[in-house]
């Protein structure tokens, strides 16, 4: 059975997904300004625990590899322990435990191969450009969004322009914390 690929993003109401937890951006770490409540924390914990591997782009790798190895707790243990696949032509020897580099020359083909060979759920957090490629290649099975009540007004978006329309099926929706939406979409 092929792996299931789940994209997971923090987005603003205007769809910006850039640097919700830090990094170099006009509004770094903007998602921390909102209270996602116990329900929201539980959703993220359950989601993370359901992952069997991470598939990420280089920038997200750098952000994660710069943070998680120094942290402790359930999230950190999970992130540090599980296999990570990084799509990049420029990342040399990755320092982060259990990381494999996929040469991004033909990212789509490599991910398609990974999807066939891997058994379990592969999660794709952040990873702006990779997500656009995966959506366009119809390799995404599920999209988890946490929508924060703010118009950020600038920055990379979870959904850039693509040539095709894609119908989705909303399978879960709830409000957590202070007006934060948790939405789960699957392929229609």
């Amino acid at each position, binding site marked *: 059975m092929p792996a299931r690929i789940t994209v997971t993003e923090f987005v603003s109401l205007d769809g910006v997904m850039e640097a919700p937890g830090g990094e170099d951006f006009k509004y770094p770490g903007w998602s921390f300004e909102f209270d996602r409540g116990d329900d929201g924390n539980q959703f993220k914990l359950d989601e993370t625990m359901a992952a069997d591997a991470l598939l990420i782009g280089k920038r997200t790798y750098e952000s994660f590899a710069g943070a998680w190895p120094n942290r402790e707790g359930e999230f950190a243990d999970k992130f540090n322990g599980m296999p990570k696949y990084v799509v990049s032509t420029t990342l040399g020897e990755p320092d982060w435990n259990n990381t494999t580099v996929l040469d991004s020359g033909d990212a789509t083909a490599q991910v398609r191969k990974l999807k066939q060979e891997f058994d379990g759920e592969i999660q794709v957090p952040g990873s702006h450009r990779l997500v656009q490629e995966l959506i366009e290649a119809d390799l995404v099975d599920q999209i988890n969004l946490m929508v924060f009540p703010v*118009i950020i*007004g600038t920055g990379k978006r979870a959904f850039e322009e693509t040539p095709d*329309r894609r119908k989705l099926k*909303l399978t879960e929706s709830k409000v957590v914390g202070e007006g934060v939406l948790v939405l789960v979409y699957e392929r229609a």
Partner: protein
Amino acid sequence: MRRIRSNFFISLDGVVESPDQWHFPYFNDEMGNAVGTAFQGNDAMLMGRVLYEEWSAYWPHNVDQPFGDVINPIKKYVLSNTLTSPDWENTEVISGDGAADKLREIKAGEGGDIGMSGSSTTVRWLLKEGLLDELNLLVHPIAVGTRLARLFTPDEPTIPLKLLSSETFATGVLNLSYAPAD
């Protein structure tokens, strides 16, 4: 205080243009009721020039249709610097540098709420001016993806919001109501 309440059909990727190309498969009674509810309590409409051109070319000739009986007689405010003499009945043009003050004056005056349908350029301007009271979005479970206009364009100021209500329809459409944060 009269509220300005804006309403959009919007795709998950934020497209609001040409809903006729993607909205209809999702229309059902729940959505019909939501649209009706959104206009309850309104006794005026506010629109940009683009929507004015579209509607004023159509509705005066279709008075007996549903909505035609409402939109033709209702008071209409049009934000435009180019429209000078509107032909459509009960239409008032608001223009120039004093537009925001004029709207503040209208909001402080007597009357019901002021509804909007679409007019994304106007809505972005109202948000920036702090004049918008409600942003109601019917979020359709589709990524339209093509070169159609989105509600939010890049290089806008950051505006914190609060979620007033949210509801999920059987079709997977979300009925979200936001207001600017206090």
